[in-house]
């Protein structure tokens, strides 16, 4: 790169229109200047911190000071060379890009942390043993019971909320008219906003009022999760059903197909990929819910296969309790978090793949 080549024309030539595009008002900094300023700012920041602090400066400090220097130096230069409007434009671009990079910090640090810290205790044995007889500083033990509990409770929640959500979405798209449909749409919105801990309190209140104050079972957690999951299912299914062109419904009606068969065999069939994707994503959303399970199903040390009797271990609650207990628990908490994230990511991935594979062929 030669610095001289794209240098702005120095002399403002007044009259002829041919030189208008090269006149002062249109002087631009060369493209590479952004990178030059960025790297320069970082180097200066590093040196300043090195001299001021004595000793190698931390990455965070260099980046922070470098960013500030970059905004300052490129801003001032741009203002001098290109004028205030371009300088403002540059500043906005910097800030907007910076916001995006800033958001990557938690994402990257969190994933790195979970993987590195979680890998410590993570192993096949960890996945296939429970916590029976583990106490004190023992580093053994595993999460088999929590995995079983999480899968059972989430499956039960899905078994409740998928049929209800599917049918409600069908009602809203295919049948619903007038004030009742508007009311239900509104209530689904309200339901979306229910805090997860309130869902847990509701499940607790419901079951303890009906079955006695000491009742505890996995199904309580499933009901709480279903309450959180149903509106998400309704929304995503509704969206998918509305994407099915009306022409297909009319084509079926014109063949003498009754409405209910049209809905099942044409509308649902056409939207099935989107519906499955939506359901999987909503499962992924509730599988990591902690607070409602903390209130309702609590924690045990071994596998409980019965959804209707006794407490149950779940991955999120396990991670929280192990974190609270400290010591070797912290490692187990990270490993449980890693397992949970893996499950969520697999669900997300499978959902995306399904939507790609099962999309109607040839349809745009």
């Amino acid at each position, binding site marked *: 790169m030669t610095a001289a080549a794209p240098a702005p024309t120095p002399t403002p030539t007044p009259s002829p229109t041919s030189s208008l595009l090269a006149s002062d008002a249109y002087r631009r900094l060369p493209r590479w200047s952004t990178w030059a300023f960025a790297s320069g700012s970082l180097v200066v920041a590093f040196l300043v911190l090195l001299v001021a602090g004595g000793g190698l400066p931390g990455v965070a400090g260099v980046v922070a000071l470098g960013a500030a220097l970059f905004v300052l130096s490129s801003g001032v230069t741009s203002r001098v060379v290109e004028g205030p409007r371009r300088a403002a434009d540059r500043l906005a671009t910097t800030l907007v890009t910076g916001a995006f990079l800033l958001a990557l910090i938690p994402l990257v640090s969190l994933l790195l942390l979970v993987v590195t810290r979680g890998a410590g205790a993570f192993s096949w044995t960890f996945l296939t043993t429970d916590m029976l007889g583990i106490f004190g500083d023992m580093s053994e033990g595993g999460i088999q019971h929590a995995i079983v509990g999480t899968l059972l409770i989430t499956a039960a929640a899905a078994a409740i909320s998928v049929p209800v959500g599917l049918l409600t979405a069908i009602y809203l798209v295919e049948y619903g008219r007038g004030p009742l449909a508007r009311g239900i749409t509104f209530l689904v919105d309200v339901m979306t906003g229910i805090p997860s801990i309130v869902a847990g309190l509701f499940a607790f209140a419901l079951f303890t009022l009906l079955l006695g104050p000491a009742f505890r079972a996995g199904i309580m957690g499933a009901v709480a999760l279903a309450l959180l999951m149903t509106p998400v299912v309704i929304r995503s299914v509704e969206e998918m059903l509305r994407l099915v*062109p009306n*022409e297909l419904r009319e084509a079926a*009606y*014109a*063949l003498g*197909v*009754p409405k209910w068969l049209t809905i099942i065999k044409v509308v649902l069939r056409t939207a099935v990929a989107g519906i499955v994707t939506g359901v999987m994503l909503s499962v992924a959303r509730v599988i990591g819910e902690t607070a409602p399970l903390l209130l309702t199903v609590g924690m045990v040390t071994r596998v409980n296969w019965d959804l209707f009797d006794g407490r149950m271990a779940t991955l999120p609650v396990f991670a929280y309790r192990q974190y609270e207990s400290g010591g070797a628990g912290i490692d187990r908490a990270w490993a449980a978090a890693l397992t949970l994230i893996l499950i969520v990511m697999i669900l997300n991935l499978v959902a995306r793949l399904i939507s790609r594979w099962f999309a109607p*062929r*040839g349809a745009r």
Partner: protein
Amino acid sequence: MSKRIDVADLDVYYGDFLAVEGVTMAIEPRQATALIGPSGCGKSTFLRTLNRMHEVIPGARVTGKALMDGQDLYGADVDPVTVRRQIGMVFQRPNPFPTMSIADNVLAGVRLNNRRMPKDAQQDLIEQSLRGANLWNEVKDRLALPGSSLSGGQQQRLCIARAIAVKPQVLLMDEPCSALDPISTLAIEDLIAELKSDYTIVIVTHNMQQAARVSDRTAFFNIAGTGKPGRLIEMDDTATMFSSPREQATEDYISGRFG
């Protein structure tokens, strides 16, 4: 097996809005009847009332009489689903089911109604319907491909094959060529000429040449102004309509002075 339809004093409403007013017409069997008129004159709306497809739109209703071979299509215990099995429909834009193969699209009327049918009867029905729609030779080697893999004109003929596979008495066509190129349009027009020996055909079209080419009788609809209901102005043999219409409005429309 094709039947006549007699309409007497039919009004169509969308909610409180009167869309089509006082239509009385006789649709003869084994003939093609063309409905022409400017946009918004209610000819498509009227067409849809013949197999009760307008009921799909909330608030749409009719008063008056529509009889097929003397039987009221709007009788108190007549299921619209039964009506539609007798009176098939082809739409403006080809709409094959995107999740189904060509063969399954033809069988859609059977399959979607959960009816069982022996394999060889299915094969016969597919071939018979696709031949009936002049499509067999073009697709017989790729029946398992999705229906949406065909060209627009082929898709429209597939939709016609799908409609006649249900063995209707009457075939309604709502501007079946308006989304097609001239060559595909010609293929459909030829097909209509053949189909009318077996079915009663009612076709809505914007193209007056098309009406003149394919139909035996023509009905002209018009509208007095925005917000006013559409009306049937006159109906006669196509040759008469295009040579010596009784009404001035018909002549103006046919000669291209408006619309």
